[in-house]
């Protein structure tokens, strides 16, 4: 529902389709973005995600909205999908 508060609502608008297969694909695609920031996301039992940085710090998140909040916290800087460096890395 809300990108920031979806964690409280537990039915994030961007994760309502695709089932298990969609979730795996979502994780793969998220990692394409997160690796640009030195982060990695792993699925944990199909219910929550575990986000890790290269120093071994980790955070458990349960939906897509919360991924960005915790990822920015671990990376120590804001992300921006319009950042030309990110766009170039994905292209």
């Amino acid at each position, binding site marked *: *529902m*809300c*990108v*920031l*508060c979806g964690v*409280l*609502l537990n039915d*994030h*608008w*961007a*994760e*309502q*389709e*695709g089932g298990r*297969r*969609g979730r*795996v*694909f*979502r994780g*793969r*695609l*998220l990692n*394409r*973005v997160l690796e640009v920031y030195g982060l990695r996301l792993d699925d944990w039992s199909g219910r929550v995600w575990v986000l890790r940085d290269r120093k071994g710090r980790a955070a458990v998140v349960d939906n*897509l*909205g919360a*991924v*960005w*909040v915790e990822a*920015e916290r671990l990376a120590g800087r*804001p*992300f*921006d*999908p*319009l950042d030309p460096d*990110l*766009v*170039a890395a*994905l*292209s």
Partner: protein
Amino acid sequence: MKTPVVLLTGYLGSGKTTLLSRLLPHPEMGETAVIVNELGEVAIDHHLLRRVDERTVVLGNGCVCCTLRGDLADELRDLLSRRDRGEIPAFGRVVVETTGVADPAPILYTLLGDPVIKHHFELERVVTTVDAQHGLRGEESVKQAAAADRLVVTKTDLADPAAVERELGRLNPAAEVLEAVRGDLSPADLFDGAERDPRDLVFEDGHAHAGDVHAMCLTFDEPLDWTAFGIWLTMLLQARGGDVLRVKGLLNVGADGPLLINGVQHVVHPPEHLPAWPDDDRRSRIVFIGRGFTGEELDRSLAAFNRAAQGSDPGGV
């Protein structure tokens, strides 16, 4: 069936209450419950009128637009239980009239986010009044107009509405603009008729100064990957949600019909699958109303996320 909720918003003195007072006795209006925050100079005589004191519940992350409006949630729940017990007439619609300076996003968040309310009520339409004499006035006024599905330019007997209507057309081309003198509109004018197809909208470029709120439209000829779109939009709203006042579009995600998306600031409605396309045009079109970025930047970025999805084989799952 969920009870439709109309959000009636607009700046102080822009004619919200006048419009409401003319609509409520209209035979087409049916039994309607009304929730207002303030009783203004225009008196509303209505047996299902409820006044609430705006009471907000700030959630842990402090995001302003995702503040729950506790007063509204309580009142809607109370209306529901009293209707079920037969204590009040079986209303078929609720109109929520906001204060003149209310940000519409927390109200939408309450309707979409509260687990009880979202199962019994659904947002029907956001109607925003704008005074032809004064036009848009300040940040809240712009947010209210950007969130609108129908814009009502009021007091057109007192001022030529042409300039205000041009301004509204540039700001929110997705909303239909109506004119009203002393609230003389029928419920059908406001609530009937389809939403504008984003593919038919005309955008006027070249007017926006840096930092100005303006409307942009992205068009994609090829289908978009829904997973990539969801990741991209959540990331964009996390990064720039305060500057993305509205997102509305029809997406071709490779299904039989388009996927309708609609969001106000951080608050995104659950995407809706439409059964079929209205015509042979299968392009995705997404309208953004915001500031601090260009349509070209959005286009390049979303295209890159979409290409990344095409390179990440979902078949290998």
